[in-house]
């Protein structure tokens, strides 16, 4: 059969339009599933899926479609939501959620909590207040915490036993900076050529945040006040000294790898391979280390440089938020109630995925069972109570960029930490005062 030119053109136009329709319709608008955006490393993603599966089993009428974040979740969320395709449930990070809350992207969960007083009372009675307070911004509750993911130290038990050392089992009994340095020195081993065979201390967090955490453990604060801070603390003596001590571990005392040393092998791999005695990180590293061959590890507190007894972690909590534009608000709330409420938190505790945000879950047998190789479980259980929150401000991305820029030379050992007072502090102050 011969097809005329006109018929061909009409057919081509029709086929083209049909092909273009799904693309123009955008992604995600094709079904009624609840979309859940989160970030997880591969080991975490498995545990996360178990929580989602359990929710699906108990709520067969709500389908959950997961969206796994790339390396920059904030940018991804901004793009999704600005483009009108905001996921229904979003993972929220303590230092970045304020930027989304300020733009009206996140639903104020007080609306849902007010409608559900029994659940609200359950959270108030069983939750760690500091974790919930982290997600309050300008009077709104923008996420429900599902975990505490502050930093602590993982230590290699075999290496410590060999050296006859016993690390503290509680935050109150933390090492001093001097004791920590001695231990890191004792556990750093070099071969004859000078190359390091085993590091005393490695850091798997973001270096400039880690330096800040050492400063917090030197008696400093991140910002004043915690929410919508008006001034930075980067020029305070305690902050400067804490950052300098952290930088010196690599550059002066050579007990920790310098940035160049970590290009070819990550801190995580060094610890997992038994080539580091202490590794700083949060519970999100737990599964990776637990799955590593021949690695017998436990957890301990960070060192403390201040006169105050005991050490602190960072709150580092992540929570779950609901998009203000969600068409599945009720289903999303059911999901939040599950994940942040007693039932879901108990499941989380059993999976060993997180340190749950509810006291009942973190003190449950399931949590202890999931961490049966951990001797110093109090480090995890008491972590939230010994944590300092990061500042909550919608200007955090700018402060973050400034910290990266000005702490870089200090961490590479080419500028003293006192330089922060001249450069980082005034610029951060300017950003906080004139957003």
């Amino acid at each position, binding site marked *: 059969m011969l097809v005329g030119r006109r018929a061909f053109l009409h057919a081509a136009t029709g086929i083209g339009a049909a092909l273009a329709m799904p693309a123009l319709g955008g992604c995600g608008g094709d079904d009624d599933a609840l979309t859940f955006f989160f970030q997880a490393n591969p080991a975490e993603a498995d545990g996360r899926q178990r929580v989602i599966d359990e929710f699906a089993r108990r709520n067969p009428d709500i389908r959950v479609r997961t969206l796994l974040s790339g390396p920059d979740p904030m940018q991804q969320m901004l793009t999704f939501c600005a483009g009108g395709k905001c996921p229904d449930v979003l993972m929220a990070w303590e230092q970045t959620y304020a930027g989304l809350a300020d733009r*009206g992207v996140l639903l104020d969960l007080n609306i849902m909590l007010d409608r559900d007083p029994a659940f609200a009372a359950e959270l108030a009675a069983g939750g760690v207040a500091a974790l919930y307070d982290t997600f309050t911004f300008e009077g709104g509750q923008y996420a429900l915490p599902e975990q505490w993911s502050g930093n602590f130290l993982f230590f290699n038990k075999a290496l410590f036993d060999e050296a006859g050392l016993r690390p503290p089992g509680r935050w109150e009994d933390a090492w001093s900076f001097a004791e920590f340095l001695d231990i890191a020195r004792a556990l750093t081993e070099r071969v004859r050529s000078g190359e390091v065979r085993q590091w005393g201390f490695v850091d798997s967090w973001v270096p400039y945040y880690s330096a800040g955490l050492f400063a917090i453990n030197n008696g400093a604060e991140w910002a004043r006040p915690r929410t919508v801070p008006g001034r930075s603390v980067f020029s305070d003596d305690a902050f400067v000294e804490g950052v300098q001590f952290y930088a010196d571990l690599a550059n002066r005392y050579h007990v920790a790898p310098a940035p160049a040393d970590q290009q070819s092998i990550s801190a995580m791999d060094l610890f997992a391979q038994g080539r580091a005695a202490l590794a700083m990180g949060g519970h999100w590293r737990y599964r990776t280390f637990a799955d590593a061959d021949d690695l017998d590890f436990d957890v301990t507190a960070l060192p403390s440089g201040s006169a105050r007894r005991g050490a602190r972690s960072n709150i580092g909590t992540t929570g779950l938020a609901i998009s203000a534009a969600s068409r599945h608000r009720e289903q999303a709330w059911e999901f939040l109630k599950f994940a942040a409420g007693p039932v879901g938190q108990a499941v989380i505790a059993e999976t060993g995925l997180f340190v749950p945000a509810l006291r009942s879950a973190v003190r449950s047998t399931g949590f202890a069972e999931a961490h049966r190789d951990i001797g110093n479980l109090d480090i995890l259980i008491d972590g939230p109570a010994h944590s300092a929150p990061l500042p909550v401000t919608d200007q955090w*991305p700018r402060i973050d960029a400034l910290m990266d820029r000005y702490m870089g030379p200090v961490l590479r050992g080419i500028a003293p930490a006192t330089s922060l007072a001249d450069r980082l502090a005034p610029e951060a102050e300017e950003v906080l005062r004139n957003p």
Partner: protein
Amino acid sequence: MARRQARAARLFIAPNLVAVAVFLVFPLGFSLYLSFQQWDMFGPIRFTGLGNFRRLLTSDPLFTIALRNTIVFTLGTLIPTVSISLVVAATLNRGVRGTGFFRTVMFLPLAISSVVMAVIWRFVFDTNNGLLNMMLGRLGIGPVPWLVDPRWAMVSVCLVSVWKSIPFATIVLLAAMQGVPADLYEAAKIDGAGAIRRFASITLPLIRGALSFVFVISIIDSVQAFDQIYVLTGGHGGPETGTYVFGIMIFQNAFAFGDAGYASAIAWLIFVVLLALTVAQLWFARKNSADR
């Protein structure tokens, strides 16, 4: 008949025109509009007039850093790209032995995406175990902190950019060289001109059009550079501000700080500068050809 043909032609080009309007003209116009507004991509758009441009030129310390880095990156890419491409194109034009293999290897970078390329180069630039430092080590040169030290980081991104730009520049220059009449070279040879003299006095003047095209395209590519720098040294243009160029500045303001108006203002300022450079280049090219 003519009317039917015209109608069919319009139907055929309509999808392309729609695509150009939706994906090119509209974003361009919208970004120009945004450059005079303040907008965080969610709240209401507020008119700020020339406020974004004033802030950029007078009170943003990162503007001078981005400008300096962009100029360094452009020169660091342009000069080696053009020099190496000229040599390579001249070599290929002479048809040396193994030209086929050489040509294939040379053009490989064109087939690889910038992101994949940058990821591979990250391994090459590793300070302790990278290929580059291992090779330098055999020559007795100590490890170079390629992506750790801000100055070396700029050298690193220039190296990658040169590697990526050479194939295209070579193709253009080679095509121009192949258009040079062979009898000119023969006459010059008879007059006793050596290879370098022939290259300087015959090849270069006769490929001037292609050369200036390569110059302009290389400058535009360098000023717009983003992907390889982002993958190699991160979204902050680090380490510190060692590789903080305009492409990174636009991205950071738009997608990290959510300041779409300001990011648009930066983009339009760059566009105006590039347009001025291109117009100047065309004017000089025309003037030179008229003088001849």
